């Protein structure tokens, strides 16, 4: 049976494929049928078809059910998902008749037609099914009203809106503030006051870098009363690599990234990290967004001036490769169609804010996107295959491409390979030596046991003649043999592993055009075994301002698609991009459905502002950093997140931005912040997250194995627990203990494409912050840094004037520092009291510890209590 077909449709018993072997449709092409036969058709058949069948099986049908059209002759001959509906002159082979008789399939579904009508159909088929109707081209595609579709706001050109006037001209710091204030004015709302400087600094540091400010940075900013103080901070943050690390992770949520190819079998995606590192660099260097788009769609096709640039371009196209690819799927046609679908979905979601993938099986239900739009893009992707089946077994692999190297890189790599070869040779020599010794031991052993020894040539070998104490010697020999066995057992996998990974050639999962780029047919109901009309490669017409450019022969068309996506005339790309930036900085987008700008999505809260930002974005060379800089230096971004009762009544969701939204930190920022605060964070320059060089992490390293090679994260690198979260390997089967935090705090499942994370609050998170080792260890490191610093803190505090008066100078000092490090602002009087009381209470509770240990424990508990608090877990 056809598994794919059943996936698509289960409501039809049309699946019997009874006719599969019948004569091929159209084989029996009649010359013009006699007039009386046509009359029979017109009087007896056509009216029935029109009345009872066209609703679901004609060009005008909302959905053409079962892929079958009965509104033209070829439609009936070709049939639907289950094959031909009629076979002229062969009633018994005509599914249509069987359906009318309500045998297997029942059509019309609700009521069987009168027997006389069914008899008419029998007669008609027996005469050869004369039928003058022809299909309109293109077949089975309904015409979409593009002009009507373009009326939707998101498909209209981006307009450089005039900056509105506002009453309070002193309030705006940036033109964008005027758009916000104008809306507030109109509603009679007043924005809340600015956040204090500490709050703003913590906010902007976490938003831009995912890390909190250090005590030194806090003090510098607190003291800087120049008008440029804010800009100085923002520029410092934007220039840091941490900015790239933070924003690359946001983008990864739109790619389905993981270090595993699919969900099955734990097949490692050993080159995926290069794409992640590419992203970090791209954000760090502020790669113009239009270029960023082009590289990810068609980097492999772009010209390059250097090996590095070429390597970068190739790696960028990994956007279309990473993702949940079910490479163990045995049906390769289905694998290809499904993978293309995830690629189309990704392009639609990430760049266009459109659910293009809805048009895989039928025209989009709500948006002006039709099957040809989907298959226009799908044709480009089908022209650039991204997986290949391995010659044995059932599985496939993602295509990888060798990356060009600079001469230095080449030399370094060859050195690596030479070293590796040496190591491998040493291992083999060791194995041979052990085998040799084992042979000797065994021969001596068998001699003791009195059985003849067979040599490699099968003949009995001469028995050595020495005489020793047989018993003692036997025990020693047995022991030695077991030792050798043990060593050989270990060596086998090591050699296998070294042989498997002997090449050190840098590779990336990169796209490339296939040998025969071509337009593809629509897959009826998404089924690759039911090809329909071939559609030209192209893109979403409703968002196009011109005809799609011709695709040169021999090319996939991805380059043209990339240009189209990154064109200043594209109404979606810039809007979707700036809205994503806004959402990361304010918690909600101006269009709250950040991944969906379609007709059923949300409309922008500030449409003119959205266009204003999009225009500035493009005007500034698609610089994301420029735009982010403007936004975070605006008044709107500077507002406090405190509630205001009257504004709350009018606008409880803060759609008008009368205050800043509060956000719970995402999993990455939470963990990174813990490491930063505890002083344990270790910088990283990226590289593989998987530890493939450890033998025990790898399985199935057999060149022609039944199952693909696989990976289990048994032995992580020592540094792993201290590097930023973006560098941790992402597994698809989420059982790895290194990754519990992410699964508890709304990490996007790597099979998902989603530009905005949920922010759930569930009790398992409370258990996590209370009891998980991650929090406990960071608290310990933080506490140790205070307790073991005789001066009371790692840095000299200026603002350490004791105002509690109940604790010692050293405790006060420590608390000052602790608050600055954990909450990024000075401790308040009441907080100092609370902390001091807590320490005193603990002092009474802890009875069994030695004084020194007691001191450590008290501070550990205090630190843990602070790290578990909402002041730390949220950003305001």
């Amino acid at each position, binding site marked *: *049976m056809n*598994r*794919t077909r*059943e996936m698509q*449709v*289960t409501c039809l018993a049309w699946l019997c494929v009874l006719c599969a072997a019948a004569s091929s449709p159209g084989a029996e092409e009649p010359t013009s049928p006699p007039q009386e036969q046509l009359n029979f058709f017109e009087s007896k058949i056509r009216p029935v078809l029109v009345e009872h069948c066209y609703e679901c099986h004609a060009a005008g049908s909302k959905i053409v059910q079962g892929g079958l059209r009965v509104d033209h002759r070829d439609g009936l001959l070709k049939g639907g998902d289950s094959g031909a509906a009629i076979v002229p002159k062969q009633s018994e082979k005509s599914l249509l008749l069987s359906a009318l008789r309500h045998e297997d399939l029942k059509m019309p579904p609700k009521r069987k037609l009168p027997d006389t009508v069914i008899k008419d159909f029998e007669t008609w088929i027996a005469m050869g099914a004369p039928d003058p109707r022809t299909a309109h081209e293109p077949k089975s595609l309904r015409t979409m009203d593009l002009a009507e579709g373009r009326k939707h706001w998101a498909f209209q050109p981006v307009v450089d809106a005039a900056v509105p006037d506002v009453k309070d001209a002193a309030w705006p710091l940036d033109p964008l503030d005027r758009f916000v204030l104008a809306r507030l004015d109109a509603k009679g709302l007043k924005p809340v006051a600015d956040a204090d400087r500490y709050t703003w600094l913590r906010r902007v540091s976490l938003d831009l870098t995912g890390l909190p400010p250090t005590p030194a940075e806090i003090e510098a900013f607190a003291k800087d009363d120049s008008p440029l103080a804010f800009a100085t901070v923002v520029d410092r943050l934007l220039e840091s690599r941490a900015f790239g690390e933070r924003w690359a992770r946001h983008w990864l949520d739109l790619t389905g990234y993981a270090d595993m190819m699919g*969900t*099955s079998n734990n097949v490692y995606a050993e080159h995926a990290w290069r794409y992640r590192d590419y992203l970090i660099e791209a954000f760090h260097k502020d790669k113009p967004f239009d270029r960023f788009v082009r590289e990810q769609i068609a980097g492999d096709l772009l010209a390059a001036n250097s090996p590095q640039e070429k390597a970068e371009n190739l790696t960028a196209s990994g956007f279309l490769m990473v993702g*949940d690819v*079910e490479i163990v*799927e045995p049906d*390769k*046609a289905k694998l290809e169609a*499904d993978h293309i679908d995830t690629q189309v979905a990704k392009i639609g979601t990430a760049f266009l804010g459109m*659910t293009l993938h809805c048009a895989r099986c039928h025209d989009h239900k*709500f*948006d002006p996107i039709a099957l040809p739009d989907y298959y226009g893009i799908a044709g480009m992707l089908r022209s650039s295959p991204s997986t290949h089946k391995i010659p044995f*077994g*059932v599985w496939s692999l993602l295509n990888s491409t060798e990356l060009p190297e600079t001469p230095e890189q080449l030399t370094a790599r060859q050195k690596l390979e030479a070293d590796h070869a040496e190591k491998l040779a040493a291992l083999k020599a060791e194995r041979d030596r052990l085998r040799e010794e084992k042979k000797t031991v065994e021969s001596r052993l068998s001699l003791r046991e009195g059985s003849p020894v067979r040599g490699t040539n099968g003949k009995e070998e001469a028995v050595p003649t020495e005489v020793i104490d047989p018993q003692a010697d036997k025990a020693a020999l047995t022991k030695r043999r077991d030792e050798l066995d043990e060593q050989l057992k270990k060596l086998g996998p090591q050699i296998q592993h070294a042989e498997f990974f002997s090449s050190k050639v840098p590779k990336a999962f990169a796209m490339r055009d296939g040998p025969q780029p071509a337009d593809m047919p629509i897959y009826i109901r998404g089924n690759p075994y039911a090809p329909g009309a071939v559609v030209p490669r192209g893109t979403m017409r409703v968002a196009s301002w011109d005809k799609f450019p011709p695709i040169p022969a021999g090319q996939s068309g991805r380059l043209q698609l990339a240009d189209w996506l990154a064109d200043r005339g594209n109404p979606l790309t810039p809007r979707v991009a700036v809205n994503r930036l806004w959402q990361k900085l304010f918690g909600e987008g101006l269009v*709250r*459905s950040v991944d*969906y700008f379609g007709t*059923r999505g949300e409309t922008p809260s500030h449409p003119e502002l959205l266009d204003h930002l999009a225009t500035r974005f493009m005007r500034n060379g698609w610089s994301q950093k420029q735009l982010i800089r403007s936004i975070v230096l605006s008044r709107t971004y500077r507002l406090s*997140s*405190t*509630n*205001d*009762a009257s504004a709350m009544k009018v606008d409880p969701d803060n759609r008008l931005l009368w205050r800043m939204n509060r956000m719970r930190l995402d999993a990455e920022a939470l963990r990174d912040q813990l490491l930063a605060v505890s002083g344990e964070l270790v910088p990283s320059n990226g590289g593989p997250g998987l530890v493939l060089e450890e033998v025990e992490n790898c399985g199935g390293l057999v060149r022609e194995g*039944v199952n693909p090679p696989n990976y289990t994260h048994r032995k992580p690198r020592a540094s792993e627990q201290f590097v930023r979260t973006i560098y941790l390997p992402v597994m698809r089967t*989420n*059982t790895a203990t290194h990754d519990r935090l992410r699964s508890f705090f709304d990490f996007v*499942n790597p*099979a*998902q494409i989603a530009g*905005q994370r949920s*922010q*759930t*609050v*569930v*009790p*398992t998170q409370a*258990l*996590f*912050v*209370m*009891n*998980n*080792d991650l929090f406990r260890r960071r608290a310990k490191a933080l506490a140790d840094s205070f307790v073991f610093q005789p001066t009371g803190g790692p840095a000299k505090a200026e603002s350490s004037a004791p105002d509690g008066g109940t604790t010692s100078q050293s405790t006060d000092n420590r608390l000052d520092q602790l608050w600055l490090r954990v909450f990024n602002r000075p401790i308040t009087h009441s*907080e100092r009291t609370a902390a001091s009381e*807590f320490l005193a209470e*603990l002092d009474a509770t802890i009875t069994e510890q030695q004084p020194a240990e007691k001191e450590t*424990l008290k501070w550990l*508990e205090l630190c*843990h*209590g602070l790290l*578990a*608090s*909402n*002041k730390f*877990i949220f950003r305001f």
Partner: protein
Amino acid sequence: MLTDSSAVAGPASSPSSLAIDGQTVRRTGVTRRQMLQGAACGFGGLALVDIVHAATNPAATRVPHFSPKAKRVIFLFMAGGPSQHDLFQEKKFIADRHGQPIDSPLRKEVTQVGTEKFLALGAMAPIRPRGDSGMKISDLMPHLSSVADDICLLRGMNADNPQHASATNQFHTGVFTEVRPSMGAWISYGLGTENHNLPSFVSIHAPGVRTYGSGFLPAEHQGTPLTVPLNDKTLPIENLRNLSPTDAIQRQRIDLTKRLNQRLIDELHGDGNMEGMIQNMELAFRMQTTTPQLVDLSQETPATLELYGIGSGKASDKHGRACLLARKLSESGVRFVQVTMDGWDHHGDVRGNLPKLCQQTDQPVAGLLKDLKQRGLLDDTLVLWSGEFGRTPWSQDLSGTAPIDKHGREHQPESFCAWMAGGGVKGGLTYGETDHLGYSVIEGKVHIHDLHATMLHLLGIDHTRLTFNQVGRDFRLTDVHGSVVKEILA
């Protein structure tokens, strides 16, 4: 600011944004009110109460679309794909040709490994008529055989994907690749919980996050994964162990955190998320003691333990404990309890391995049915037993050299067996038939979507009307498919 917990605990608080017929609900937004509902679990002293847990208390009970036959579901998931050809159906055609080559029904694009010879593999043990109904069940499952008249055997099950991960996703969520809510989450979303102190969805020994995930549904509908600890090292729920030297110290630390949190909320003039965090911390603190009590079966009678096959050293101990816990949870009002029993993936030596799995699971499963029945719970509890797919009637031998009796079987989604019991299905009914091989369904096909539709129907939910709006589209558990299998309804 909404802080009155009484305002959020009662049925009236069911947020209108979650209305069943698909009002728009924003994907990421968990409203303040939901948040509070999430947090406002009961404060009773029962052990069960406090497992209150991990996924929090989903909104109040909703009105079903029509009168339900079942109020709750226990899903026994046989991960790996049990062999229906050894357990529930024997084909004469195959039995007659045991060890002999047969014609492959596979389409040529589909590759399998180790099945190239296409040798028929007969059932490993007799499959005989049982009970008054004469339902056929293997000698390997004597306990299940004794309750044959209570179960409805579906022999025309049908799924779409032959890979474990994809098929498991489909079984739980209806789709293979996309991340969608699990059926337990849908049911929680549709019906809420019967018991405000309990989660509505618990998954014991869950096989991966996506099987209990809530997808785009609010997180409160996510299943709570639970492990039945067989030793002191295993925690029933992660992070349950206090790391401070004593509970008193931990309590003081939590109080400090609470004080800081409360002060912050005051400064900000209220915040629903943060209120939720405070309550959750209290809850989490109690869970440390109540959860181990919940999974502690030392107070159960010897008769109960015997019924489920619980006892140290017994092969059925682990699953027996899981099934007994499932009964306790279900009895207390958990809408959807899943128990996963894995190890059914017998690519090789099915004859050697299958009996072991049957020993581990048969008595617990049958014990559960008997226990539910004797407590009068079976009538409104729907029990479902299934793997993600079945196995082939032809043999598989990855080594290429093993004798036929050491062969296993490859995955087969085209047809397999599952059964339902209680909750409005016909006991003793055998429904569905496959072809002479036991490969294609020829009668009574029940696709996963149909199974989901039927399950929802029994719970009083019209599967076409249980929707959630996401990126502009109303999503369903059954996508655009599924029809209720009326023939099996009692």
